[in-house]
């Protein structure tokens, strides 16, 4: 009976008709990519709503809106949702959509696992978000879940199981990406001709496989400490609270790069397109990503300079951290050199990419300052740190994702987005995000700790400015939503197959919108068509 049905005629024509069949049962990399992107955009708005609560409470001194405990729930949930719900899944969504198209593969290597790794995510987040409606409230010990504080929370078990599910999803996604890249490239797509975006994801996927189990181990120990009377982190029972921090940040620092390496890849595709000039130093770019990934494993304790490490450890982690500035600098210099001597136009993806390079670099500067341990005794756990990681994660990671969305949405939808509204979104975002985060540097230097719901009146002015920037930035993202909906459903302007004049790479050789199945037969590759086909170095 099974043999009669082995060849399904519909398999190679179009998408299944039924909604449930198409979206819930999907094994198609494009549909799953879309699901990931929609999911992450939803989470971006939910996490953003939490941020609005935070900025509203911090609008002026005094407690006006929420209880301090709820404020802590908001900071914790904002981080968890943005990191695990918005940034990471959106990069996975982009990988799903683009990697097969970029390497000339018909689909991801493991399509059913692809479905599973997506559909775990909504359940993980239902579990996590449901804690907000429970009697004990949501997790309020910070996304870092440091014991003993996190063990005081009643919802820690929900949080831990949610983290386990996210971890399983990430590991499966990473396995899939590695298998696809290493096994399913079209003939002629040599590793050193792959788009930088594909390279960045290959390296990121290895980071994910290496560190997600570490996080799972750390939170499992929390779970047994809380419910099964183990004493991993309980000083009174012979354990050590600092052990958790070491394990957590051994995961946590590579995690930070998991959220930025694919961004490097995206920017390395977009800038050459709009500069109409091949990327400068392709191999250096790839090696820089690889060395940043390697270094990410030996710098974790720079998050812990104030826990009282021995001096030798502080010196080691300080030097190792400072080293990261070298490959990161190479990347920034190479992007600038790609622009130099080009023939540039400034469509929305390029605007977001340029803003990325500048503002991510500002985040890198504050990162270098934070690496200096003696100065970090002052900066640590202040708004200076908050400003730093929002520059690298919002104007870094999130801006790169928006750049990617504008860059590839013609390929996804077959329509061009409204350039006018895209630019309005860009300018509104880039101004407001600086109003939001730049003053936080001042607040931190002046002495405002992070994660506090109320503050001395000396911090009032910059907090008010920051909050205004926050509301403005939040509102600006509704424009993005509008542009996306308009582009997909209402835009009359059809996209060409090669949607951008300077765009190179296999993804632009298939029709727009990309048909349900592409590269059923491996493409014949001409190096001139590739973005990085003729790199000598």
């Amino acid at each position, binding site marked *: 009976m099974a043999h009669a049905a082995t060849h399904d005629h519909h398999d190679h024509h179009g998408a299944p008709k039924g909604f449930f069949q198409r979206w819930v049962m999907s094994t198609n990399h494009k549909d799953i990519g879309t699901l990931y992107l929609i999911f992450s955009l939803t989470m971006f708005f939910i996490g953003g709503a939490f941020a609005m609560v935070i900025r509203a409470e911090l609008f002026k*001194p*005094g*407690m006006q809106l929420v209880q*301090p405990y709820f404020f*802590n729930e908001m900071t914790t949930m904002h981080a968890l949702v943005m990191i695990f719900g918005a940034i990471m899944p959106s990069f996975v969504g982009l990988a799903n959509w683009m990697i097969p198209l970029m390497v000339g593969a018909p689909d991801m290597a493991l399509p059913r696992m692809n479905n599973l790794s997506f559909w775990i995510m909504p359940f993980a987040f239902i579990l996590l978000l449901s804690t907000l409606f429970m009697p004990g409230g949501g997790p*309020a010990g910070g996304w870092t879940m*440091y014991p003993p*504080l996190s063990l*005081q929370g009643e919802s820690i078990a929900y949080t831990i199981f949610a983290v386990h599910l996210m971890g399983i999803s990430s590991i499966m996604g990473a396995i899939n990406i590695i298998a696809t890249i290493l096994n399913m490239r079209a003939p002629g797509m040599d590793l050193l001709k792959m788009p930088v975006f594909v390279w960045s994801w290959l390296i990121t996927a290895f980071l994910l496989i290496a560190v997600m189990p570490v996080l799972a181990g750390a939170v499992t120990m929390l779970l047994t400490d809380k419910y099964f009377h183990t004493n991993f982190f309980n*000083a009174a029972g012979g354990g050590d*609270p*600092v052990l958790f921090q070491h394990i957590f940040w051994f995961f946590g620092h590579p995690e930070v790069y998991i959220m930025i390496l694919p961004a490097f890849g995206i920017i390395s595709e977009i800038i050459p397109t709009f*500069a109409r*000039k*091949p*990327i400068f*130093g*392709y191999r250096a770019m790839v090696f820089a990503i690889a060395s940043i990934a390697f270094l990410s494993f030996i710098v974790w304790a720079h998050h812990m300079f*104030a826990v*009282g490490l021995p*001096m030798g450890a502080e010196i080691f982690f*300080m030097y190792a951290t400072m080293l990261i*500035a*070298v490959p990161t*600098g*190479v990347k920034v*210099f190479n992007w600038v*050199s790609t*622009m130099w*001597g*080009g*023939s*540039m*136009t*400034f469509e929305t993806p390029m605007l977001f990419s340029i803003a990325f*390079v*500048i503002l991510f*670099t500002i985040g890198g500067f504050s990162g*270098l*300052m934070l690496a*200096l341990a*003696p*100065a970090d*005794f*002052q900066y*640590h*756990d*202040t708004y200076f740190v908050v400003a730093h990681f929002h520059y690298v994660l919002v104007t870094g990671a999130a801006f790169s994702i928006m750049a990617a969305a504008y860059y590839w949405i013609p390929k996804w939808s077959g329509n061009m987005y409204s350039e006018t509204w895209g630019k309005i979104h860009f300018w509104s975002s880039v101004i407001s995000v600086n109003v939001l985060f730049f003053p936080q540097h*001042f607040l931190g230097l*002046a002495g*405002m700790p992070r994660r*506090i719901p*109320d503050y001395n*009146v000396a911090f*009032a*002015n*910059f907090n008010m*400015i920051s909050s205004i920037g926050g509301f403005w930035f939040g509102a600006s993202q509704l424009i993005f939503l509008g542009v996306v909906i308009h582009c997909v459903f209402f835009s009359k302007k059809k996209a060409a197959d090669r949607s951008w004049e*300077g765009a190179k790479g296999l993804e632009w050789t298939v029709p727009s919108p990309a048909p349900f199945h592409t590269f059923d037969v491996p493409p014949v590759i001409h190096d001139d068509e590739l973005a990085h086909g003729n790199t000598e*170095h």
Partner: protein
Amino acid sequence: MTSGGIGRSVSAWAAGAFALFGGTAWANPEPNQLNMTKGAAEWSPYAMHMVALWVCVVIGVVVFGAMFVAMFRFRKSRGAVAEKWTHSTKLEVVWTVVPVIILIFLAHLATGGLTSFADTTNADMTIKVTGYQWKWRYDYVDYKGKGVDQVGFMSKLEETSDRTRQLKSNLDPDKIQVDGYHTYLLDVDKPLVVPVGTKIRFIIVGGDVIHSWWVPALGWKMDAIPGIANAAWTKIKEPGVYRGQCAELCGQDHGFMPIVVKAVPKAEFEQWLATQEDEAKVRKAAQTAQNAPAPAPQG
């Protein structure tokens, strides 16, 4: 700033900018303060911070400058034609080596700072700091080589701030002032009193969860962790009142456990310490007389 709003903020910029470049040292947070305090102690990361800041500013000007020149000169709308080169070994060596040299310079400075900070030996006095949810406890261990007898007390947010910070209290945080300084959430019922010009070793521990003891004017923070005795030191140069806060998330009232260090001349401190010791003795005697079970000594 419940009344002035943005207008006042903008007009205060001039003062802030002047302070940044004029180098006025603030010990405690001031409105519109832009930069780190120089601090009031012998050890301060301020110089290190400023060097790093200026290094970043200079690199930023060069890199962003090059970007803006590129964006202006190499526009398609100005008729720019894309060049084909993708590589320059000479340039790549330069921008790998130059950052390394800058980093070595910064690392050298920072290593010096770390070494001097790590040296807690030869202290003239020792104070044990314990973090609790949500207050601090200070115990005077020794002074000038002699043990201090039972001087220790809790230090928590003072009452007016505590009332004002309740949700929808409708009390004005601006009104809470001590000697003209706005002390909302930065004042305690009983400050830590220390002598100036004395090397003080702090032993910092956590009583329940992890806290972090931070007074910006002293230039550092140190986590207070259950089961671990961390050490740090300071030598305060000028008498004054130095304010700080808990810097590690420690639960719902994390934002409401300030630290106040009152640095006084040595003679005044010795007098204060003697009074405290006497009081402790009296307390102890009274307890023995009543034959009551001895509770933990509290201030």
